[in-house]
């Protein structure tokens, strides 16, 4: 029995997979909700270049959130 073991990684692959699921999927889900809330908050504000920039940014954030959610589902083999 060996007393010393050489480990090259921090945690087991299973734990690391769950960490990735939360880090990517969880953050993706949060971003999805966050961007919807941001867009709703912009309603009623007068049109301006800043508002257009904000809307564009939130739309891109929304797409990025969808990619993160899709990637997580694909990584876990759910789809």
């Amino acid at each position, binding site marked *: 029995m060996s007393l010393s073991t050489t480990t*090259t*990684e*921090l*945690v087991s692959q299973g734990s*690391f997979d769950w960490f*990735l699921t939360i*880090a*990517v999927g969880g*953050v993706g889900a949060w971003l999805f909700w966050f961007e919807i809330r941001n867009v709703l908050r912009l309603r009623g504000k007068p049109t301006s*270049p800043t508002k257009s*920039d*904000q809307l*564009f*940014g*939130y*739309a*891109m*954030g929304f*797409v*990025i959130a969808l*990619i*993160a959610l899709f*990637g997580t589902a*694909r*990584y876990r083999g759910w789809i």
Partner: protein
Amino acid sequence: MIATADVASSPAPTPRVVSKINPANAVTASRFLTLPPFVWAVYNGYHQWATLFILICGLLDKLDGLAAKVFDCRSNFGELFDAITDGICYGFALIIVMAYGWAPLIPCFILILLGGVNSGLRAVYIKRCGRNVNYKSYAMERVVGFIAYLIGMATANFLPSIMFWTFVPIMVIVVAHDAKRMLLDPVPT
């Protein structure tokens, strides 16, 4: 009456000068310290360690904004330094994961190229404005955040090919949009 006279005779408030050496910029600069261990981890094939170091780099990116708020040391230089540090850290990390075959070559190359174009556009915008000002792009903030994630996905072997290729069109659209805003639209006064 006395109060009015006091106000009239008091000197005009001078703009607050923030030193370049402040807690927020120190946090920003500390992000460079994550790069040598990141290279070590990639070189040795330690995927989880590499993910950890790029995660720390990303978290420090969030912390510097918080430090600027807490210590009240926001400055134009700080914003520019943060943007430049983003470019150097994430650009370098992208090159490393690309060089070691952890991320697909062509999309990585396109992302680095577009990052360089974006930096050039910002330099032109500063010239147009005539002062050190960082163009606030809500879309680019999200894109940079996701690039950090992409590097983490490459180190974690999280569908790197699909994720990188899916992201390229988004980066192209955002850089094109920001190019129009910085080069063609009127600059704010």
